[in-house]
């Protein structure tokens, strides 16, 4: 079919094109070069009255919907003028982040309070999506000194506090006490991975389980848990903003992990959820979040033991990363909503409520003064998680500050642990990828 492109048609098409371009330019971000969000120091809540209601977006970490609702009910009784709408905004940290980012792009339907994980809050900060809480903390007299120092420090940047800790966790070493007993092993977690390597054949021989140890699912948070191995061997994903995942120490750590699967054949890699695999008896041991503790205790049909994360040949202690989620307040909502959300945030993180949250989920209490006596009497294993907090280490910048780095780490781990890829080459490729992400997506946004 031939088309006669005369002047009228041409003008019509041109008009259509201009109209389309104009329509396109109506939506989306500003390209004028200015950032819409106000400077952190501009926020002044003097004379602001809290809004009558706001949405609280959560993924209910650790199956916490019931305890979240019960805390909200208590809040409503104390503050009847502020209604908190509990919104299930995703099944995990990634889904809630997806919804939050999309709402930012749409510039509508933002919550007053949002759950943000360790790898997401910094992106919200660089995008200007969340406000600093310092002014609100002062105005509402939040007892910031009573929070666990390391957990609060995780959300500090540029001399501001960007979130408060909520469902905070560390990885724990889970072991099947019955298997350990049958193998004649002591009733404790191994002190180092070398010690566990000596135990593993005995466990495999006597337990009947498929694996002595199973690595957490790579589609989950491989970048998080593998920091334990890297640090134990003296390596890391990064040191400051230097990406040293291809260092001799880091390569040695992951080579050891690969050997445990392919050479020594006592370890495997979980397909979906290591805690579920452990509870199902497929493996004698694993590492998983403290947030999985109550679920494992409920579903396992054997005696469950938990212990500190094992060390490595270079470091036996301080090899456990912190993790989990905090709570932040979006910048794109009114001051009234921000104040209402902050009032609830203060209430949510008070000692008795953090203790209740901890009792229901297994997450660590975020307040030093939280009375955990009743909780520990019921679930003594939580004590291990609390004690381990003293020997945790701040996560590598590469994992928590680089967008997509966690996913790249998981891909690299998959290549090494499930395809027997060359460790040095894989880590060299990963370093190049991390360098690229830093240079393009992070460095230009960092404050000098």
């Amino acid at each position: 079919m031939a088309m006669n492109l005369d002047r009228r048609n041409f003008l019509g098409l041109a008009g259509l094109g201009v109209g389309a371009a104009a329509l396109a330019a109506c939506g989306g971000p500003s390209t004028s070069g200015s950032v819409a969000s106000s400077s952190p120091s501009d926020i002044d809540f003097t004379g602001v009255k809290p809004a009558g209601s706001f949405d609280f977006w959560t993924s209910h970490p650790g199956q916490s919907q019931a305890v979240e609702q019960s805390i909200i009910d208590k809040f409503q009784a104390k503050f009847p003028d502020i209604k908190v709408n509990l919104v299930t905004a995703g099944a995990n940290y990634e889904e809630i982040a997806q919804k939050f980012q999309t709402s930012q792009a749409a510039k509508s339907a933002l919550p007053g309070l949002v759950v943000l994980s360790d790898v997401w809050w910094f992106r919200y900060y660089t995008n200007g999506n969340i406000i600093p809480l310092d002014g609100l903390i002062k105005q509402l007299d939040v007892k910031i000194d009573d929070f666990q120092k390391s957990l609060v420090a995780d959300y500090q940047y540029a001399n501001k506090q960007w979130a408060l800790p909520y469902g905070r966790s560390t990885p724990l070493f889970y072991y099947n006490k019955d298997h350990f007993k049958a193998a004649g092993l002591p009733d404790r977690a191994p002190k180092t991975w070398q010690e566990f390597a000596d135990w593993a054949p005995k466990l495999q021989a006597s337990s009947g389980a498929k694996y002595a140890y199973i690595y957490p699912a790579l589609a989950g948070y491989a970048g998080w848990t593998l920091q334990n191995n890297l640090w134990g061997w003296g390596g890391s994903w990064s040191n400051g903003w230097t990406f040293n995942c291809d260092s001799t120490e880091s390569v040695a750590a992951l080579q050891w992990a690969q050997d445990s699967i392919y050479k020594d054949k006592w370890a495997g890699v979980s397909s979906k959820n290591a805690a579920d695999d452990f509870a199902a008896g497929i493996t004698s041991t694993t590492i998983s979040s403290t947030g999985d503790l109550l679920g494992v205790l409920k579903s396992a049909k054997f005696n469950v033991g938990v212990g500190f994360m094992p060390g490595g040949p270079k470091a036996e202690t301080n090899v456990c990363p912190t993790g989990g989620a905090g709570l932040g307040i979006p910048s794109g909502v009114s001051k009234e909503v921000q104040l209402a959300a902050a009032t609830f945030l203060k209430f949510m993180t008070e000692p008795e409520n953090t203790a209740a949250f901890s009792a229901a989920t297994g997450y660590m209490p975020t307040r030093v003064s939280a009375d955990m006596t009743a909780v520990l009497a019921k679930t003594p294993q939580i004590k291990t998680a609390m004690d381990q907090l003293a020997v945790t280490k701040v996560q590598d910048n590469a994992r928590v500050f680089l967008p997509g780095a966690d996913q790249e780490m998981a891909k690299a781990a998959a290549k090494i642990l499930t395809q027997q890829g060359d460790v040095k080459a894989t880590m060299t490729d990963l370093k190049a990828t991390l360098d690229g992400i830093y240079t393009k997506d992070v460095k230009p946004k960092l404050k000098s």
Partner: protein
Amino acid sequence: MTRQLTGSPAAPAQAVQAPQRRGRWSGRTRRDFFVFLALALPNLALIAVFTYLPLVNNMYYSTLDWTLGSTSATVVGFDNYINFFTSSDAPQVLGTTVIFTVVTVGGSMVLGLLVALALNAKVRGTTFARSAVFAPYVLSGVGVGLVWLFIFDPGYGVLSWLLRGIGQQSPQWINDPQLSLVMVIIVYVWKNLGYCAVVYLAGLQSLPKDVMEAASLDGANGFRRFMSISVPLLSPTTFFLLITTMISSLQAFDLIRIMTPLGNGTSTLIYEAYLQAFGAYNRAGYSAAISVVLFAILLIITVLQLRFVERKVHYS
């Protein structure tokens, strides 16, 4: 000059017909036209708002360096396209897309045709069999993905249990990127072959019986009749299925999202676009560029199919 070239052959006829055309715009025709507008405009408006406007918006976003969630962006022209085609991921993503599309389209159509031949037989239980074959097509992709994940799970899946029964270890379907692609392809073909089977069955049942009977009388066996009569006469059906299944495969998302959320080994163009914007990276402009590449590929394939493949189709 231009006016002569564009207008000369048809100009006299248009000049003659012009008064007649004006005459038609009265009475019933005018009423019909308004009825047409009343019926078509709401749909056209919906299509414009929910299909073409996002398409144009997406093309605009593909020229931006924009982090999803950020309120500001920088215009970078074609940089996102250049970055994609020069990235180390591009060959893998394009390769995965080609493998996934070719195998799922081919698998669904070949198996669908074989199933249709079986369903076309006049035996007891064909009505139930037809329903059973078509059922997976109308099931939720999310539900199908979750059930098949349980089947494939190397730890405690049904397949693993069966393999252990014969002394074999289950392959690492979920952790091994190559096997993940095989796993997703198997499930996709299983879910979609019912659609091909039903369409082929309709085609088989409309084949002229007299031609078949004549061929039988001439001594042609079943295979010869199928290859020389059924296959050519089914070409319109095959052509229709080729276009629809190819577009559907290139847009496959739900099964990949549920079965392999990390997209390790299964990242087709559409899934890569999703991961880049809504996954961990938040590169909205880059993701928009990948979407435009997918759109261009779909457009080219459809035009090529309409121009060249349709010529080989026997409509009677």
